C-alpha cells in the first residue's frame, strides 16, 4: 500500500523498473512541457514541501517588487520559467544566503542585491496600536504573513491557504493524489504456469559444486580420523562419589600437620534469643553506651530484643554481612596457634614458708613517741637498747626511753637534723648529730653514770699533736654553755652534712657532705680528732656511706651504684649495680655479706656480695619511694620504710653454707603513720636485741612495733 505512493502519477507504466524510480520521472517531466509543469506544480509538489516553498518565496518577492497581483505574477512565472530554471541565482534577490535573519535586526537594510547594493527594509513603523488596528480593520489579516527575507507582508492566496490547511490536517499536499489506490499484486503468490522470463536455467545449477564437495570431503576425513567429535551433551550437575573410600594415611600431606583449622564461630548465649530472660535486655543507658561504642569495640554485635511471639520476629538485617565477615576471616586473617595459659592463679603464687613459722617479728604497734612538732627524719638507738634518739625538722633532738615512750631530754640544736648515729660501742655513750654544716658529738648523759663519765674522760684525754696537720674540717671543742647541754665536740665542715655513720668499733665515723667535689665523704677519728678525705676524685653524688661491721670495707652508694672500697689496701674492691634509678638508703647484714639498698623508685635490691654484683633479688613491695632500710642485728629480719606510710618487715635468712641462697619472705606490713606532705615513713630502725622495729614518720611521731 505505502510502497507505490510516489509512482501514483505514472499509473500507466506497467514496467516494474519504472515504478521504483518515479522521483526521477518527476524531474524529467519538470523540464518536458509547461502544461505538465502546471499540473506537477500543484501535484507532486505536495510530496516535497520545502521545494514549493523555495519556489514560492521568490515568486512573492517578485510580486512585492512589482507591486502586482498574484495572477500577473503567475503569468510572469510562465514567461520567466526557463530563466528561473537555468540558474537559481537570478531568482535570489537577497544575496546574504541562508542565515538567521535576526542578524540584520538592528540594521536598516536586510541584505544585498546582486549588484551589492543594500536592500532596505520596507518602511514599517507599526507599533502595537497599529498592529491592533490592522488586526481589527484588515479582513485579510489572518492570511497575511511576513517574509523574513524581505520583511514584507504577504497575503496568502486561497490555494496556498488550502495547501497549508491540508498539510496541517496531515493530508497530502496534492489534492488529486489518491492514497487509497487499489493494490496491484505484482508478485503474486499464485504459481503461474509460465515462467516470468524465458531464460533457460544455468548449467551450474545442474552440476554439484566442486568447492562444496571439497569442503564436505575434508569434514568427512576429519570425522573419520577422529579429529572432529560430536559435541557431548553438557551435564552441569556435579557428580558425587565416595571421596573418602580409601583413607590412606600415607597420602596425607606433611603440611597438613601445620594446618591451623579456623576457630569455630562462637555459639550464641541467652542474650541472642528472640525471647531472652528480662535481665539480658539492655537498659536505656546501656543501649546508649552501646550505640556510642565503635562497632569493633562492642561486646555484643547486636542489641538484645524481646519479641512476644515467633511471628513478630523480623529478619536480621546484618545476616549476610556476618556471613561475609566470617568469609573474610577465613581467608584474610592470619592464624596462629596461641597457647592459652590455663593455669590456676593459685598455682602462680609462690609457695613460701608461712610467716607464723618465721616468728618472731614485729606485728603490732606497741608505743607511739609523741613530742616532735615536725617530721622526724632520723632515729638511732643506744647499743644497750634502752635509749632512743630522734632528730627532727623542728630543730631539736629528743632522747627517749624505749620502754616507756618518755622523752628524757630535748636538745635544741638550732637547725634541721639530717642524720644522727649512736656510737655502737657499748662502752662509749656518744651520739653524732648532723646539723647543717657541722657534726655534733653529744654525750646524752643517760644511763650508767660511770659509762658516760668514762666517755667524757675519754674525750678530754685528747692531747693535741705537736705539729698542726692540715685538715678538711675544723674540730672545735664545745663552749661551756654547750657543754652543759651535752655537746662535747663540733666537727665543722665546709658544706652541709647529710649523713653520719659510725664504724663498728666506735672510734671512727664517716660523714657525707652534700657537695659534688671529691670532698663528699670524710672519715673522722674521734679519739685523735682528725679527719681525712679518702677519695681523690668524686664518682658521682654520694647518697650514703657505710662501714663493714667486721672487715675493713667501706661502702659508698652513689645514685645508681654501690662501690665497695678496701680501706687497708686503699682500693676499689667491687662495684655493685643496683638496677635502680636513685638509691636512697643502704643497710648491711650483720654477717657482712649481704646488702640491701632502698631506692626512690620504690625498689629494694638485695645484694649477695659472694654471688654477684647484680642484685640477687629486686623487691617491689612498696608503692612509693623507699626512704630507709634496716637490718636487725640478731634476728634474720629487715625492714623498709616508704612514702606510702608503711613499713614492711621481711624475713631475710642468710645461710652459712654458700650453696644455699638467702631466703626472703615478707612477713608483715605495718601501717600506722599518717601521710603528711606526701611523706610517710622517713626512717626505720630495729631494736638491737628485741624483734622490735621503730619507725619515724612525717607526722612527727615515732612508733614502736613489737
Amino acid at each position: 500500500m505505502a510502497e507505490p505512493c510516489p509512482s501514483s502519477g505514472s499509473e500507466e507504466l506497467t514496467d516494474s523498473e519504472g515504478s521504483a524510480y518515479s522521483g526521477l520521472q518527476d524531474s524529467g517531466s519538470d523540464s518536458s512541457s509547461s502544461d505538465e509543469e502546471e499540473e506537477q506544480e500543484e501535484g507532486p509538489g505536495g510530496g516535497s514541501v520545502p521545494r514549493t516553498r523555495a519556489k514560492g518565496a521568490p515568486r512573492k518577492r517578485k510580486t512585492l517588487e512589482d507591486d502586482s497581483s498574484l495572477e500577473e505574477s503567475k503569468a510572469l512565472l510562465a514567461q520567466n520559467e526557463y530563466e528561473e530554471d537555468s540558474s537559481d541565482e537570478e531568482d535570489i534577490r537577497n544575496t546574504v544566503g541562508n542565515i538567521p535573519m535576526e542578524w540584520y535586526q538592528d540594521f536598516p537594510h536586510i541584505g544585498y542585491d546582486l549588484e551589492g547594493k543594500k536592500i532596505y527594509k520596507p518602511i514599517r513603523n507599526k507599533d502595537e496600536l497599529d498592529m491592533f488596528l490592522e488586526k481589527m480593520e484588515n479582513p485579510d489579516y489572518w492570511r497575511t504573513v511576513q517574509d523574513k527575507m524581505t520583511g514584507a507582508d504577504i497575503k496568502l492566496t486561497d490555494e496556498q491557504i488550502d495547501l497549508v490547511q491540508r498539510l496541517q490536517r496531515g493530508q497530502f499536499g496534492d489534492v488529486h493524489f489518491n492514497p487509497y489506490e487499489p493494490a496491484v499484486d505484482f508478485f503474486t503468490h499464485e504459481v503461474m504456469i509460465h515462467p516470468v522470463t524465458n531464460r533457460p536455467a544455468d548449467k551450474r545449477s545442474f552440476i554439484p559444486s566442486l568447492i562444496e564437495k571439497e569442503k564436505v570431503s575434508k569434514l568427512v576425513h576429519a570425522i573419520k580420523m577422529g579429529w572432529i567429535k560430536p559435541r557431548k551433551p553438557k551435564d552441569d550437575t556435579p557428580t558425587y562419589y565416595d571421596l573418602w573410600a580409601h583413607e590412606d594415611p600415607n597420602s596425607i600431606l606433611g603440611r597438613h600437620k601445620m594446618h591451623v583449622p579456623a576457630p569455630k564461630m562462637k555459639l550464641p548465649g541467652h542474650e541472642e534469643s528472640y525471647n531472652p530472660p528480662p535481665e539480658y535486655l539492655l537498659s536505656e543507658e546501656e543501649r546508649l553506651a552501646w550505640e556510642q561504642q565503635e562497632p569493633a569495640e562492642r561486646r555484643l554485635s547486636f542489641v538484645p530484643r524481646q519479641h512476644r511471639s515467633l511471628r513478630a520476629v523480623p529478619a536480621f538485617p546484618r545476616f549476610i554481612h556476618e556471613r561475609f565477615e566470617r568469609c573474610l576471616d577465613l581467608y584474610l586473617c592470619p592464624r596462629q596457634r596461641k597457647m592459652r595459659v590455663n593455669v590456676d592463679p593459685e598455682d602462680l603464687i609462690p609457695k613460701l614458708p608461712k610467716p607464723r613459722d618465721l616468728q618472731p617479728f614485729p606485728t603490732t604497734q606497741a608505743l607511739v613517741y609523741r613530742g616532735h612538732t615536725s617530721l622526724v627524719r632520723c632515729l638511732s638507738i643506744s647499743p644497750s637498747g634502752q635509749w632512743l634518739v630522734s632528730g627532727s625538722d623542728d630543730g631539736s633532738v629528743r632522747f627517749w626511753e624505749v620502754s616507756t615512750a618518755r622523752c628524757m631530754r630535748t636538745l635544741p640544736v638550732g637547725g634541721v637534723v639530717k642524720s644522727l648515729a649512736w656510737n655502737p660501742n657499748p662502752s662509749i655513750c656518744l651520739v653524732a648529730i648532723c646539723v647543717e654544716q657541722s657534726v655534733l658529738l653529744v654525750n646524752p648523759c643517760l644511763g650508767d653514770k660511770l659509762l658516760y663519765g668514762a666517755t667524757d674522760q675519754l674525750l678530754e684525754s685528747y692531747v693535741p699533736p705537736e705539729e698542726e696537720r692540715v685538715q678538711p674540717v675544723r674540730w672545735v671543742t664545745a663552749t661551756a654553755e654547750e657543754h652543759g647541754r651535752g655537746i662535747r665536740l663540733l666537727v665543722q665542715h665546709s658544706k652541709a652534712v647529710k649523713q653520719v655513720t659510725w664504724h663498728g668499733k666506735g672510734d671512727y665515723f664517716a660523714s657525707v657532705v652534700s657537695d659534688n667535689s671529691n670532698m663528699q665523704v670524710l672519715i673522722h677519728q674521734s679519739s685523735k680528732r682528725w679527719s681525712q678525705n679518702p677519695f681523690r676524685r668524686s664518682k658521682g653524688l654520694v647518697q650514703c656511706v657505710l662501714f663493714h661491721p667486721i672487715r675493713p670495707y667501706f661502702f659508698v652508694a652513689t645514685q645508681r651504684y654501690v662501690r665497695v672500697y678496701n680501706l687497708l689496701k686503699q682500693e676499689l674492691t667491687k662495684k655493685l649495680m643496683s638496677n635502680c634509678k636513685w638509691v636512697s638508703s643502704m643497710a648491711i647484714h650483720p654477717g657482712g655479706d649481704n646488702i640491701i639498698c632502698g631506692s626512690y623508685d620504690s625498689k629494694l635490691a638485695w645484694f649477695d656480695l659472694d654471688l654477684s654484683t647484680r642484685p640477687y633479688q629486686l623487691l617491689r613491695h612498696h608503692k612509693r619511694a623507699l626512704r630507709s632500710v634496716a637490718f636487725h642485728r640478731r634476728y634474720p629480719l629487715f625492714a623498709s620504710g616508704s612514702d606510702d606510710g608503711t613499713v614492711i618487715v621481711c624475713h631475710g635468712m642468710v645461710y652459712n653454707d654458700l650453696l644455699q641462697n638467702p631466703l626472703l619472705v615478707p612477713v608483715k606490713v605495718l601501717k600506722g603513720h599518717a601521710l603528711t606532705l606526701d611523706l610517710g615513713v622517713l626512717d626505720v630502725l630495729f631494736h638491737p636485741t628485741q624483734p622490735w622495729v621503730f619507725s619515724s614518720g612525717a607526722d612527727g611521731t615515732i612508733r614502736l612495733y613489737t
Partner: protein
Amino acid sequence: MGGVEKKKYERGAATNYITRNRARKKLQLSLPDFRRLCILKGIYPHEPKHKKKVNKGSTAPRTFYLLKDIKFLLHEPIVNKFREYKVFVRKLRKAYGKSEWSTVDRLKDNKPTYKLDHIVKERYPTFVDALRDLDDALSMCFLFSTFPRTGKCHVQTIQLCRRLAVEFLNYVIASRSLRKVGAVVFLSIKGIYYQAEVLGQPVTWITPYTFAHDHPTDVDYRVMATFTEFYTTLLGFVNFRLYQSLNLLYPPKIDGQADVELKPAEGKEYAMDSESYLEKLSALSSSLARVVAPTHEEEVELDEFPVEGTAEQMDARKKEQEALEKHKKLFEGLRFFLNREVPREPLAFVIRCFGGQVSWDKSLCIGATYDVSDPSITHQIVDRPQVQQQVVGRYYLQPQWVFDSVNAKLCLPVADYFPGVLLPPHLSPFVTEQEGDYIPPEKLKLLAMQRGEEPGDASEEEEEEEDSNDKEEEEEEDESEKEEEMKLKKLEEQKTQSNKALPVTVTAGKLRLEDKQRLEQEQQSEEKRLAIMMMKKREKYLYKKIMFGKKRKVREANKLAAKRKAHDAAVKEKKKSKKAQRA
C-alpha cells in the same frame, strides 16, 4: 678473618615468608584469581613473629604468606584452569565484538571448567576432618538457598545449595542425629541455630528467617560465591558419604510407598517433575528409600564388656544410653499439625527428628499427610493471638513449645505455651553454666525439672509463702519496734534513777568474742597478700590479668542478678497493685 660477607635478609625468617604481591607475581595470577585460589585451597596469611625482620626492616603493614604455602600452590592444576578461563574470556569478548555468533556459541560450548574434588580430598584427608569443618559450609549453603533466583549469583548455584541443604536435613532426620546432651535448636534474633551430632562430631549451622533479603552493597558476592563453590563440593561429598553410611540411596529417593502417597490425588501436576522432586524432598515429610530393605530392629544393644570399668560405670553408661534413647523418641506417637502462619521447615524438621508425625495444610506445601480435621492430632502448633474454633482433644500450642521441649529433653508442661499467653523466656541451649556464672532462674527451674523434681507448683507456693513471710516479717518488725520502745523507756528510767543516785556508775564490760574463723581468714588473706608481693614480675602480671577477668565475670553475673531482682520486684509490684485495684 675473610669469608663472604653475610647479607641481611637472606636467611632466617625473611626467607620463610613472602608478601602477597610477590606471591601473586610468582603465581602469575591477578589479585581476584589469587584470592580465589587461596579460598579454594584454604591458604591463609601468617603473622611472622618478628615482623620487621621479615619485612626487610620496613614496618609497613603487609600481608605475609608462608613461602611453602605459595610453592605448594605453584603446582596446583587449577591455576592453569584459571589462565585458560582468562583466555576464554578474552576470546569470547573478541567474538562478541566482531559479532561472530557461531564462534561465540562454539566458545561457550568449550568453556573451561574445573573440579574441586581433589582439593576437598587434599584439605580433608579424612572424613572426620571434613565433618569438623562443616559448620561454615552448611550455614553458607542455607543462606544461598534462600537467595532469590535473580542477580547476585547463578541460579544453578542457588538450586544446588538448596538441594544439598535439603539432603542434609533429610539425612539428619533419617539418622535422628539431632541430639546432643541438652541442646539442639535455638531461635535467635539472627536466625535459627541448629546443632546436630553427626558421627560424633557436633555440627552447628544457622539459617536465616524466611524473609526476602535486603542485599547489602558493601558485600563482595564474588568472594562468597567462591566460598560457596567449594562448600557445595564439600557438602555434596559429605552428603554422599553420610547417605552411604545409612544405606540410603544418593541422590536421595523418596520411599516408594510414600512416593505414591505424595502424588496429588486430583491428577493435577504440582510442578514439573524435576522441580517437584526437590519440593517433595524439602517437604521433609517422607522417609527415604534405602539400598537394602530396612530392618525394623536395628537398635544396637550396648554390648557388655565386663573388663571395662566397674559396674557403677556400666550402670551410668547404660542409664545415659537409655536417656538418649528416650530423648530420641521424645515426640514418638505424637501427631502435630502446623498452622500456616508458623515456619514450616524448622518445625517439621525438628518434629520429624524426634520421631513425631507432622502435617500441614495441603495448600501450604506438598507432602501434607493428614488434614486439620484429623481427630488423631494431638498437638496443633499455632502462632496467632487466639484460635476461633478449637477442636477438643488436642493442644493448641505456640511453636516455642516444640523447641523448648527439644532443648529440655522432655515434653514441657503445655500451660505456659497456649496461644496468646506471655511466653516464658527462650533460653540458649548452647550455654553450659559453670560455677560462678549467672544462671537465669528459668534455667534453674528447667534443671530441677530434668532432675525429676516438680518445681512448677513449688514456685507458686514459694511466692505465696513469700507473701505470707512478708506479712510475718512486717508483724515481727512491728513487735520488735515495740520492744525497742520499751527498752528505751526502761533505759531512760534507769538514767533518771542513776542521775539521782550516784554520779559514777559501773557499766558491765562487754565480752569481746574473738571470732576465730574470721581471724583465721584474715591471717590467710594476709599471707596470700604477702606471697603475692613476692611474685615475679611476669607472673604477677599474669595473675593480675586472670584475677581481673574473674572479677569482671563476677561483676557481670552480679549485675545480671541485680537486674533480674529489680525486674521481678517490679512485676510483683504490678501484680499487687492490680490485686489491690480488684479488691
